[in-house]
């Protein structure tokens, strides 16, 4: 990409006000944000720059890193860098979809439970208890085994896994809110319970839910890696970090770059989200920031 075209789109993409707002945030948000944006840029822009596709066999197998293949090649002679970056997109999309689905379902579940204290709440929360009684990975494996391996099923399975976390947060926040006078006021004004939840409760519980979503997305990334490692996630030849590590375990000592590339990519993305989450928590939690 030429220098001229860069200056043309740069100010459009990042308006000065946005940059200034970003620089005003705490250090954790800044580090996490920069890391995340850099990784996203690599994941999205990488395939444009690297000429090899993630499944093209471009060289001899198990070549160490070189100028042609920056991170070497794998057992089948595929470019590890191309595969790692392609996997980043898949992993992030899957993790994000799983997080978004469980956020929607969990928020609704928790709000309904918290608003209807009594038998409804009791039943809804016991269902979550049962769900959480299973070891999460075991539950995921069981669900995938029943549903079959496909990307859609993987997303669904993981979103089921993370519903309880969102639901518990939504419920406890709703419990506090339902006794607030502005929620009572809406009842007196004849606002329906559903409308009351959407207009008053949801906007006022969104902050803890957004913060939680950063930790859920990291959990989803790791779960997806683990499932792919076990062969129950995204199926080859589509590269995923967990799958790449699984393929390489037999030659790990001879070709460590095969494991190091997807491994460190996972760590960096997880770290970025965790830093961002901690930063947001510091920013919005009055007990921490004062």
């Amino acid at each position, binding site marked *: 990409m030429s220098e001229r075209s860069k200056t043309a789109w740069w100010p459009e993409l990042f308006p000065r006000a946005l940059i200034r707002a970003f620089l005003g945030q705490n250090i954790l948000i800044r580090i996490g944000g920069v890391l995340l944006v850099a990784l996203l840029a690599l994941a999205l822009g990488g395939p444009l720059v690297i000429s090899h596709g993630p499944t093209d066999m471009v060289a001899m197998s198990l070549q160490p890193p070189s100028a042609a293949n920056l991170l070497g090649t794998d057992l089948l002679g595929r470019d590890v860098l191309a595969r790692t970056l392609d996997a980043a997109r898949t992993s992030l999309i899957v993790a994000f979809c799983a997080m978004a689905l469980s956020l929607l379902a969990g928020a609704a579940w928790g709000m309904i439970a918290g608003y209807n204290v009594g038998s409804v709440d009791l039943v809804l929360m016991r269902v979550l208890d049962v769900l959480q009684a299973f070891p999460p990975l075991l539950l995921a494996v069981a669900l995938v085994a029943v549903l079959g391996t496909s990307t859609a099923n993987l997303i669904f399975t993981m979103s089921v896994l993370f519903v309880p976390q969102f639901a518990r947060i939504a419920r406890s926040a709703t419990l506090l809110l339902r006794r*607030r*006078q*502005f929620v*009572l*006021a*809406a*009842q*007196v*004004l*004849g*606002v*329906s319970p559903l*409308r009351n939840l959407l*207009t*008053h409760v949801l*906007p*006022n519980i969104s902050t803890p839910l957004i913060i939680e979503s950063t930790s859920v997305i990291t959990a989803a990334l790791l779960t997806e890696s683990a499932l792919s490692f076990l062969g129950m996630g995204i199926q080859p030849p589509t590269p995923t970090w967990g799958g790449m590590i699984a393929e390489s375990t037999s030659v790990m000592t001879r070709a460590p770059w095969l494991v190091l590339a997807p491994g460190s990519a996972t760590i960096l993305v997880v770290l970025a989200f965790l830093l961002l989450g901690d930063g947001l928590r510091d920013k919005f939690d009055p007990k921490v920031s004062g």
Partner: protein
Amino acid sequence: MTEPLLTLRDLTKHFPAGAGKVVQAVDGVNLDVYEGETLGLVGESGCGKSTTAHLIVGLHQASRGKVIFAGEDVAALSGRARQSIRHQMQYIFQDPNDSLDPRMRVRSIIGEGLVARGGMGRAERDALIREMLEKVGLPPDAMERFPHEFSGGQRQRIGIARALVLRPRLVVADEPISALDVSVQSQILNLMGDLRRELGLTYVFVAHNLAAVGYVSDRIAVMYLGRVVEIGETADILNTPRHPYTQALLSAIPDPDIGAAKKARIVLQGDIPSPIDPPSGCRFRTRCPMAQQICSEQVPMLGPHTSQDRRAHQTACHFAGAVS
């Protein structure tokens, strides 16, 4: 004005308190509120006055008894009829910092009831909101602002506008001034009085401050531990209280008149008993200076009933005559 606008019959609310016990927050309250009047409901905290206010507008479901509004048993209605009657009863909340959604603009806050009632376009709603803002003494540009941009008194004006924009017949005000600075309390009381005359409202005014209640009310009902112990015209209650509890409450009001003879203060012994296990008979007997045997055996009823006038001064005390 022979039929009351609002009637509470044997209204009772018991909250479960675990281990099979119940909190008798409100126990057999009977009240009549007539169109156009202001009924003050006073008592110390925990006496059930706020719960009574919640029961009237349906924020709590009664354990027993009825709320009758304009001749209709509210609990017996359903669907649209109930919704319509709910809109005729509105509520002013105690704490204007808590009663306005911090994430909403004033336009949405005041318009919320209109939207819920439906059948009205945006322009028509805005016109009503603007008119209501003017009535409560706020500038029209307040519509676009958020609650945190206003002072406590202004926020309570927004709360009043929200309740009145629906043109209710009855307004239940739950301690509407106790969260405000003393300097703006009287402004809000005067505003509520002006609006009552202008819009022909009926108020149930809940407060623990007898002086404020005396200032705005036509009649006063005094509550103690979930029951009404005395009710009557404001002047009667303030000048010739018959119930020993009312007498004690009144004697606690500081007298600003320096030259006046010092009145005797009646200091009650002990705390208000637990509503989980209230005293038998008269609930006030454990702190009453004139309690006798009969007080623990018989529940005193509001009386006398000799008069046909339901608005007459009535006291729930076995010795009401002897006291005064």
